[in-house]
């Protein structure tokens, strides 16, 4: 166990980590939520250090010679899985059932929450152990279980810290700040104060001792899944801490919750994906724990195995010929590690589904773009393309971002009162459609801008452009445009 585990990044206090998604006040736009994150010095330091650590690990273990071939193979495998998704899912259900498990289909988050809560109740458990799962976060599972009177015991290190911090009298605190985690453990985990401050091994040991008891007492476990192999009905889970393996093996009842897109047709596909995922997730060539679980086996492991398959917008995303590329995602978080926006804001402004560039293209598709929060996500990128360069299954994230921006604009085009931006962009397009109109507009704009300037610089602009001059100057436009210069020269 390490202080900075790979996998989906969720610090304490990520929105939706507790309550039901969509409950309460409308979540803020990315730009608004980002402000708080940008001002959080501890978060900024942690994110910088995290990004630097991954870059270092990556450069320490250079890519294998066939990396580009592997990426292409990964893309093809994931595309093939999605193309025949209906057939693969039916095959998966057959295989899981034959192996003694049960498949449950959930069209939406509420149905998934109901299914899992019902299964836990049926098992008569008042407590579940849980390993990190992006889908559980997406559907707000922890909140639902809590409301049903079930205590959820997070077993991943980061989630354990987040959970302990959540109801800590000192207030929600740490991300990856070892000193703060140590203080938190000292308050919340009896007998865990040992070790020098900042010693990751001591922190890991404290968490391990605490979790061991939880595991041994647990009757029900809830996990996610990295892959679902259709031909054998197998759940494949990768992790660096070993807690998910405990969840898979110790309790009587195992409940795996996964998105329907996690399916791959055959075991042979794992050859490629098990090479792509670890390196992309952590920069290391291998993952410490790769667990695979198929149905139930007499006298070994869980006596009941439930697989809850979640749609929650995925079928809709699949129908979008550009947007569907997002469903290829294998959850490595490599795009987060290289994203200059994520490196400064962290996960919270992206909302509960997924953070970083992949979240910016997945969340609006799964939740729709009606609300300002989801509609702002495709715009939370400079389109720099660093994410597409590293994606192990070659998702062209900038392409999907631009596509979704188009969808956001279209969804707002026919409002009774047009947005100021629509008026501006239409006006600009009309102006630029004709060289004479364009010339006249530039002439007027130049005159106006020169009046606003002092010493060759513009320090303050009105309206939408005011955001630029909050922290940046704009050079005053020279009196003669290139066009004017050219025609003067060729008169």
């Amino acid at each position: 166990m390490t202080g900075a585990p790979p996998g989906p990044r969720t610090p304490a206090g990520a929105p939706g980590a507790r309550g039901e998604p969509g409950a309460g006040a409308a979540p803020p736009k990315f730009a608004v939520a980002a402000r708080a994150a940008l001002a959080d010095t501890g978060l900024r330091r942690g994110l910088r250090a995290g990004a630097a650590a991954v870059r270092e690990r990556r450069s320490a273990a250079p890519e294998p010679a066939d990396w580009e071939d592997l990426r292409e193979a990964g893309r093809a495998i994931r595309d093939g899985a999605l193309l025949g998704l209906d057939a693969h899912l039916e095959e998966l259900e057959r295989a899981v059932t034959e192996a003694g498990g049960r498949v449950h289909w959930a069209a939406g988050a509420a149905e998934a929450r109901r299914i899992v809560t019902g299964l836990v109740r049926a098992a008569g458990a008042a407590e579940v152990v849980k390993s990190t799962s992006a889908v559980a976060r997406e559907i707000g599972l922890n909140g639902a279980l809590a409301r049903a009177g079930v205590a959820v015991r997070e077993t991943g290190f980061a989630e354990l810290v987040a959970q302990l911090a959540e109801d800590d009298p000192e207030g929600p605190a740490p991300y990856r700040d070892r000193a703060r985690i140590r203080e938190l453990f000292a308050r919340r985990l009896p007998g865990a104060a040992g070790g020098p401050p900042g010693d990751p091994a001591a922190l890991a040991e404290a968490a391990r001792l605490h979790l061991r008891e939880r595991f041994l007492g647990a009757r029900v476990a809830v996990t996610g899944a990295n892959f679902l192999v259709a031909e054998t009905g197998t759940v494949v889970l990768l992790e660096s801490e070993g807690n998910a393996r405990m969840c898979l093996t110790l309790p009587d009842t195992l409940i795996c919750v996964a998105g329907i897109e996690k399916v791959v047709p055959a075991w042979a596909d794992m050859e490629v994906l098990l090479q792509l995922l670890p390196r992309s997730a952590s920069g290391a060539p291998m993952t410490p724990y790769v667990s695979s679980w198929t149905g139930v086996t007499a006298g070994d492991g869980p006596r009941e195995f439930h697989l809850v398959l979640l749609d929650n917008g995925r079928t809709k995303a699949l129908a979008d010929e550009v947007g569907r590329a997002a469903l290829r995602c294998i959850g490595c978080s490599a795009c987060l590690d290289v994203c200059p926006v994520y490196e400064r804001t962290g996960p919270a402004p992206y909302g509960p589904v997924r953070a970083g560039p992949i979240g910016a293209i997945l969340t609006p598709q799964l939740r729709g773009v009606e609300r300002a929060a989801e509609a702002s996500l495709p715009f939370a990128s400079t389109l720099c393309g660093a994410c597409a360069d590293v994606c192990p299954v070659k998702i062209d994230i900038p392409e999907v971002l631009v596509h979704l921006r188009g969808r956001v604009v279209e969804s707002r085009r026919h409002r009774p009162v047009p947005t100021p931006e629509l008026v501006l962009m239409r006006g600009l397009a009309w102006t630029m459609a004709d060289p004479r109109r364009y010339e006249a507009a530039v002439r007027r704009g130049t005159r106006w801008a020169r009046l606003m300037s002092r010493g060759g610089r513009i320090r303050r602009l009105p309206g939408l452009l005011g955001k630029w001059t909050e922290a940046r100057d704009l050079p005053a436009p020279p009196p003669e445009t290139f066009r004017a210069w050219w025609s003067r020269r060729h008169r």
Partner: protein
Amino acid sequence: MRVALFVACFDDALFPATGRAVTALLERLGHDVSYPPGQTCCGQMHWTTGYHREAAGLARAFTAAFEGAEAIVAPSASCAAAVRDAYPRIARAARDAALARAAEELAVYELTEFLVDVLGVTDVGAYFPHRVTYHPSCQSARTLGVADRPLRLLRAVKGLDLVELPAAQECCGFGGAFAMKNADVSVAMVADKVRHVRDTGADVVCAVDNGCLAHIGGALSRLRGGVRVMHLAEILAGTGPA
């Protein structure tokens, strides 16, 4: 060679010196430069901001303005990328096969691609006795893949002291409308870029995109950073004592 200049709207109004520099440079190298007067804006801004219908209209006008040009040269990587990389997507989104065909016909080059790949020159006879660092803009480096072409051109400039920019590949935070829509994140990014630029001790930071330079330069100007921004073309156009 007959070269049709593509001067982005942004450059036309705010950075006309760049277009003049490209004209001077290409004419010095013995080429016949023209400026198709039908051009206005390539539609990049509309496309990336989500106004795809409007972008398609502007793309149609652009392809008409440059139809039949032997070589189109743009001193703006993001605009060259818009035509080369985005036009096929714009045409697909608009289900406009004629636009897709017209876009395919266009031979558009970013300036350094044209110099190094088409003309086969790296030493353009320039003189620029200053310490210079180079910011590889995302569209030039990732979308177009110009790689080290700008650096090869800079290394051949007499008197120029080229210094490496730390974390050069990281985006400056401009991103068109991003700089306004997500102004706080954008500023956090350019703050780091400016720090790296100043760490080099360079007098000038150059790039092949005036968008990024307006952003980096705007922050340097506000902070009185003491570093100038300059388009690479303006460095290459400079000649000194013979």
